[in-house]
């Protein structure tokens, strides 16, 4: 099985990066030349056997993929579905994001650039980028909202240990969206020697398509593993959706399988009926943000509204344009999961399986729990749900400890 086998032809996006009415390039002209260069390099690489072989070898020997597909029996018994966990949390650096950064770091080398910049929310993508930069001997600057540098201090230290410069961003809401603005500004100023290593399947063309293709191995593996394990395709695939790379990564290989339901779970925060959530599809509307047309949390004037989620990695007021398209086309279903639902699922996985998930991934677990009864009723049997356990929860121990009130006072 090749983790990066090319996507089937004839699918979205079109040559200009449009997924139906979404996607495209809403960027300063100053970036167009760099995006064209990246697009050309990416297309050349994806048809170059030596690139694909190098990427495959890195994924296998360095990142530790294919990741396991683990039948979570005790968790399954609690939620009334046969849950198969795609263990992306076991990858090197602890999340699916290593796949994307290895792909883009290889491309950076091929384009002859010496410097990578990245934005990060939870710090997972920053750590993954700093890791790849160390491996490939690239200079690395990571922009991180000041609020996030505090709630994810451990990941800041990790990035610095790996030799990256972490720049706390103090503009706007001081979270992921502002880190992305700052990275974009850096890129406009330094585009000649710098690659902007975007961490999710969002941004201007070709990023949504390219990032998807670098992470789609998750679904390719899961599909084959599920067939091996159960003799059939799953009834549903579940993933959390912030920007949406882990969800696209696991969805994409299943898109042609009409019988497989695709569920994306957005961060519902304190509820999509409140103003404290990060559910761009279920609680937002079509707009332009960070280089693409997609679903955005915004007011009537098109000003971005600050998002909220207990999970820093989902705390983003936009979503990758392919998800917007999958939603409009009806191929995937997007539902909100609240902070409380996610934390209950977080606790349940800890206690039943001895696995501490990332709070991001806990949204997918909670979502699976939510859809299980309906699916069981519809199918007349226990449904099989593949859940993308996109990251591990080490980074979230402090947040979870505070949430559950289990930290000793002096901590």
């Amino acid at each position, binding site marked *: 099985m090749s983790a990066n086998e090319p996507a089937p032809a004839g699918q979205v996006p079109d040559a200009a990066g449009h997924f139906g009415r979404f996607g495209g390039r809403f960027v300063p002209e100053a970036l*167009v030349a760099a995006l064209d260069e990246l697009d050309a390099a990416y297309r050349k690489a994806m048809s170059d056997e030596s690139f694909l072989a190098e990427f495959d070898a890195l994924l296998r020997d360095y990142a530790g993929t294919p990741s396991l597909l683990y039948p979570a029996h005790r968790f399954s018994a609690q939620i009334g579905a046969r849950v198969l966990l795609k263990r992306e949390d076991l990858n090197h650096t602890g999340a699916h994001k290593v796949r994307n950064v290895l792909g883009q770091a290889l491309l950076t080398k091929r384009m002859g650039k010496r410097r990578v910049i990245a934005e990060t929310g939870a710090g997972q993508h920053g750590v993954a980028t700093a890791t790849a930069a160390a491996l490939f001997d690239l200079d690395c600057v990571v922009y991180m909202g000041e609020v996030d540098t505090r709630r994810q201090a451990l990941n800041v230290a990790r990035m610095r240990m790996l030799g990256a410069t972490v720049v706390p961003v103090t503009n*706007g809401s001081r979270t992921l969206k502002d880190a992305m603005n700052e990275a974009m500004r850096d890129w406009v100023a330094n585009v000649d020697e710098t690659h902007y290593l975007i961490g999710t399947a969002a941004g201007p063309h070709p990023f949504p398509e390219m990032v998807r293709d670098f992470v789609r191995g998750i679904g390719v593996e899961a599909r084959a593993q599920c067939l091996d394990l159960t003799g059939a395709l799953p009834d549903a695939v579940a993933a959390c959706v912030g920007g949406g790379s882990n969800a696209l990564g696991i969805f994409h290989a299943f898109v042609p399988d009409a019988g497989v339901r695709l569920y994306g779970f957005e961060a519902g925060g304190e509820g999509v009926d409140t103003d404290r959530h990060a559910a761009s599809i279920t609680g937002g509307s079509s707009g332009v943000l960070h280089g693409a047309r997609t679903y955005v949390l915004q007011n009537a004037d098109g000003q971005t509204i600050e998002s909220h989620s207990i999970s820093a990695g989902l705390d983003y007021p936009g979503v990758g344009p392919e998800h917007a398209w999958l939603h409009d086309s009806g191929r995937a279903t997007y539902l909100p999961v609240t902070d409380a639902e996610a934390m209950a699922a977080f606790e349940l996985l800890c206690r039943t399986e001895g696995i501490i998930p990332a709070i991001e991934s806990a949204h997918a677990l909670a979502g699976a729990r939510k859809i299980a009864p309906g699916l069981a009723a519809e199918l007349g049997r226990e449904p099989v749900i593949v859940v993308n356990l996109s990251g591990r929860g080490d980074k979230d121990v402090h947040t979870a400890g505070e949430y559950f009130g289990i930290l000793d006072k002096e901590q």
Partner: protein
Amino acid sequence: MSRIGVAFDKARADGRAVLVGCMPAGFPTVEGSIAAMTAMVSAGVDVIEVEIPYSDPVMDGPVIQKASDIALAGGVRTADTLRIVEAVAATGAPVVTMTYWNPIEQYGVDAFARDLAAAGGTGLITPDLIPDEADEWLAASDAHGLDRTFLVSPSSTDARLRMTVEHCRGFVYATAIMGVTGARSQTSEAAPILVSRLREVTDLPVGVGLGVGTGAQAGTVAGYADGVIVGSALIRCLLDAPDPAAGLTALRALSAELAEGVRHPQR
């Protein structure tokens, strides 16, 4: 010909460049921004560029970001921008609007074009809308007789320069440096090269922006460009002032210095 085109022609006949001064709508307040822009006109700024404040201005440096944040925190709405355009246009100076794309998309592209034209605005400068994605705006600007200023950059290929100027009307905006807005101690060496590349493909007036903050720099840019676009340095007059009156005094002084600069092109 558009009113901006007339201003450029007149300046060209006088052997000087047009001075374009930028200020965010609603900064520091709606009335305050009208007062500031009116003061700029009376001190010699030829064309006023009213920037619609936006929450995520990726082409702008810290000064414009801060001013935009102040305007948004004060509750300025897109509709207020139109009121400001109308008030400033009443001075007789051409008023062009600069905007990131999402506020226009949410207002409704045709509705905004209609209302901007009715307010006396001449057109839009669109920093994150390239002609490739602009079909709706091309149609709306044609329908309502508005100018279209797209940006070009030192990194633009010849083919993209040609394509972009074909879609411009009024003037074309050359970003002088690779980077965000903000006054710099030196203006760019890339800018004259970009302008001469533009001369090969268009007769449209060329405005150069990003980095100009003094009369001397304005004179240098006026030596090769038809328009000198200044934003951050003017905004800083208000940001740094101890009180609004002092801010307007500083703003008038800098406007006059820049107006003097564009009248002495350094060739």
